[in-house]
């Protein structure tokens, strides 16, 4: 029996802007520790909303209402006196768009360590920065230009820098929002390899557009459709023996409204692409 890192209890999120949108309609889930869980589903089905509500990151935008709860190791994330930044330290987040902080490569990784007071000396900081850059296989590419702006790296390198930056905070859980979708295929592969290495040590929850990526990387798959949890299972059973009709349609690429191409027809390596792009 694997132990559970994160649990959601009837989690519902509503955007209350000009038009009220129920993005998540009461989702109860368990995310196993030290495994990689992939959240899949068509565009606009609440994948990113679910991810961001796990560390309360959706709260930084206005007009969001939330009910239900999230438990991190049996302690409530929402009903607590602990300041939210302390929670986000434990549940890290890697954004979809590779975004360097407006700092040098070195400072990007050191930033989290600094704000959380994790390092006492410059030597220790240097050492940690190197450790995390090595962890994401970026050290050899950047070790000679650590003072260069993070923004001058390639997008693939920036995304690995973002991973290193999040890891440096030493989170227990890492939330990854379609971290390869903005990357070229080769960079995407490098980032995937990095994630595959990391899931030994961290609980990773990843939103992805690509079923192939979920198949390759995930231990568990969560399928959302229009804010509802449709099915969750271990990766093998999920793809080989989907229980729900909607999952079957999605897995075989026959949810015709959102997807034009099926992944089987277009070859094993291609991603399913939403039609509206």
């Amino acid at each position, binding site marked *: 029996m694997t132990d559970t890192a994160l649990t959601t209890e009837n989690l519902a999120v509503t955007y209350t802007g000009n038009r009220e949108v129920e993005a998540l309609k009461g989702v109860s889930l368990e995310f196993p520790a030290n495994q990689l869980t992939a959240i899949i589903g068509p565009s606009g089905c609440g994948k990113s909303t679910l991810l961001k509500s796990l*560390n309360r*990151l959706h709260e*930084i*935008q*206005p007009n969001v209402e939330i009910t239900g709860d999230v438990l991190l190791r049996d302690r409530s994330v929402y009903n607590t006196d602990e*300041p939210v*930044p*302390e*929670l*986000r*330290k434990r549940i*890290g*987040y*890697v*954004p979809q*768009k590779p*975004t*360097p*902080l*407006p*700092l*040098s490569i070195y400072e990007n990784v050191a*930033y*989290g360590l600094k*704000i*959380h007071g994790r390092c006492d000396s410059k030597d220790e900081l240097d050492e940690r920065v190197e450790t995390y850059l090595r962890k994401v296989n970026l050290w050899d590419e950047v070790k000679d230009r650590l003072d260069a*702006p*993070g*923004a*001058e*790296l*390639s*997008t693939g390198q*920036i995304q690995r820098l*973002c991973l290193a*930056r*999040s890891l440096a*905070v030493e989170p227990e859980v890492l*939330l990854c929002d379609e971290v390869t979708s903005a990357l070229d295929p080769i960079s995407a592969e490098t980032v995937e390899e990095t994630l595959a290495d990391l899931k030994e040590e961290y609980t990773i929850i990843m939103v992805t557009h690509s079923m192939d990526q979920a198949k390759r990387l995930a231990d568990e798959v969560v399928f959302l459709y229009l804010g509802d949890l449709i099915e969750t299972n271990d990766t093998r059973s999920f793809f080989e023996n989907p229980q729900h009709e909607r999952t079957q349609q999605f897995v075989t690429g026959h949810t015709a409204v959102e997807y034009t191409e099926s992944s089987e027809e277009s070859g094993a390596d291609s991603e399913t692409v939403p039609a509206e792009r």
Partner: protein
Amino acid sequence: MDRYAKQRLFGLLARGSAALVVAVMVLVVSVTIFRGGRVLLTDPAIAVTPPGSRYMLEGDGGFLHAVLGSLFIVVPATIASATLAVSTAIYLQSDYSSERFSDVVNMFLNVLWGTPPIVYGVFILTVIIAVGAQTSLFFGIIAIGIFQYPIMTRYTDEALRSAPDTVREATYGLGGTRFETALMTLRAAMPGIIAGIIMGFARGIGDAATVLFTAGRSTRMPAGLFEPSTTLPVLIFDQAMSFNAEVRSHAYAASFVLIVAVLGLIIVSKLLAGRYARFAPGGRNS
């Protein structure tokens, strides 16, 4: 008229208006630089000598007192105003204020920006009279500071708004507090903020109407915070109105100093902004 003729006509209009603006600018700058430069070359000492007793009548002495007067007013005013402007602009962002509130404040700031500077001058003058004081550096600093504040706030607000929201999200995602996130966004917006502060400085040092009634006039070196002091724009106005040709020529020399200072500031701001722009996400290479 067929489509291509319309296109050519529009192209002509666009090029014509651009050429007109550039021509006027080049004319103003070059006349000032050549005429002022010639005066300065013939008698470089006027830039650094204090005014003599009869300098308004016979061109006795230089305009160092006005250069210093301007700097003593604009430097402190810019520092104070920029501090307030950056704080206000941070407060107007979505983490601190509702969209409606910041819209209303921005509307007021636009009105203030559009207010003719002479109005600030007269307003501070009534304050001076009310408290029974005299015109001085101190009130000049206050008037220029108020004049610069909306300019710098609007620039900073725009810069913060156009900084990518992903920087904010990433900083929060790393466990940053609201304040740490605001500082990070500030860094990302630095090129725009520097531009705004330099713009405020340039407008402040070049404005005559605000300081006319508040800092006053003086034919001596600035003597203290609560003593009247001439500034460059006021000096240029006074000298250009003079009957004496030599005094009028000094107005060109003073204009030369002012215009070179403003050009220099803009170049410095470009260089500074460029240094920060390298670090901005989506900068040079992406």
